[in-house]
């Protein structure tokens, strides 16, 4: 059984299709393994090698990865929710109700999206605290720290724009209060509020604008910054490693 599987794999790797996709041979040596990582779009911004120390499991270790996985989960569940949601008044509220009570597994998806969103805010903050107390903002990681701060803001804006979409009382008043806070900003405040809402009240235009920001603009910004963030982790010398009892290395 195992032998025939190996045989099939060997055969598959000798086919023209396989060779056209994976242009190198099997990754059997350190060199070919590195080449496999460098030559792959999805892997090339990950380190080809990691230090054993940085893989040591700790309570706070996976916070960044958890944030990213939650983001991926939110993207998938969000796209699925979009199939049933119209960003218009008063249809938006009815669609949200339908997702909860009529659509098969709709309540599961909606709650998954909602809870993952809340968890993501928590995870991003926890990741940030971890990096901060570890001194992960120090050279050579300063730039990546700033990217991280931008990602925190994008996460908060995603959370805020998503909050309006159910179009219930909570959403309406939260956005009313939030956009009034924005208008307290000196000089620009009133213009920013008007552009954000597409008017002077939280109405149809505001719902559509928040929808576009939530589903298109902010996720694209997040994806670009996440890519830079991961890339810089590698370029800045891998994850920050600290000796258990001693000063920070690197």
């Amino acid at each position, binding site marked *: 059984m195992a032998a025939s599987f190996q045989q099939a794999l060997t055969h598959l790797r000798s086919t023209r299709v396989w060779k056209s996709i994976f242009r190198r041979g099997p990754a059997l040596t350190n060199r070919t393994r590195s080449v496999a990582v460098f030559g792959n779009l999805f892997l090339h911004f990950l380190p080809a090698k990691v230090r054993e120390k940085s893989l040591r499991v700790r309570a706070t270790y996976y916070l960044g990865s958890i944030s990213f996985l939650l983001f991926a989960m939110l993207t998938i569940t969000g796209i699925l929710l979009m199939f049933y949601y119209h960003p218009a008044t008063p249809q938006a509220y009815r669609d949200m109700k339908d997702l909860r009570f009529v659509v098969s597994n709709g309540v599961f998806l909606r709650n998954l999206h909602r809870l993952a969103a809340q968890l993501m805010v928590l995870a991003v903050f926890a990741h940030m605290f971890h990096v901060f107390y570890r001194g992960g903002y120090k050279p050579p990681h300063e730039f990546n720290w700033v990217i991280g701060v931008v990602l925190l803001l994008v996460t908060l804006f995603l959370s805020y724009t998503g909050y309006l979409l159910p179009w219930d009382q909570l959403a309406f*008043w939260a956005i*009313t*209060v939030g*956009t*009034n*806070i924005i208008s307290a900003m000196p000089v620009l405040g009133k213009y920013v509020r*008007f*552009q954000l809402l*597409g*008017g*002077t*009240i939280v*109405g*149809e*235009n505001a719902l559509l604008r928040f929808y576009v920001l939530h589903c298109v603009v902010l996720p694209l910004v997040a994806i670009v910054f996440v890519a830079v963030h991961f890339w810089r982790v590698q370029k800045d010398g891998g994850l920050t490693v600290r000796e258990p009892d001693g000063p920070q290395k690197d």
Partner: protein
Amino acid sequence: MTDSSKPGNAAGLPKTTEAGVSRRDFLNEITFAALGIAAGGSAIVTYGYLEPNVLFEPPTKFRAGAPDLYPVNTVTYLPEQQVYIVRTREGFYAVSAVCTHLGCITQWKPEAEQIACPCHGSKFRADGRKIEGPAPRPLPHFSIGLTPDGELQVDKLETINPNQVLRT
């Protein structure tokens, strides 16, 4: 790649002007300047595009019915317009129901004779004066008048001095 001090092309033209600007620098500068102007222009028209010219929002000027609908010494809330019509012995005034703190809709509490905001606890008197709470300003008074056929009319775009009362 090219040294600007060296002689020019085959035709013998110099590669720098008298002021020492090379052709490469000049072309770079006008290219980036053109791109910069185009980018700035795009930003301006995009801003204009995103700013709606027509708003489908409730009208700010409305009729509030005959004055007799409002008994003396009462505060009546008009939910559509988010305005209180207050009638005292002196006459009428219209007070905004939108809290000056963060825009929540306040409620008239007859038993306490107060206007209270459910969001952050601001309290006002019936004439809009602030009693307490985070609200920074009193509730504004809107311009109120009578139409030719004798109905009350309120204009929410025009705020007036709180001392002004529509006498009846």
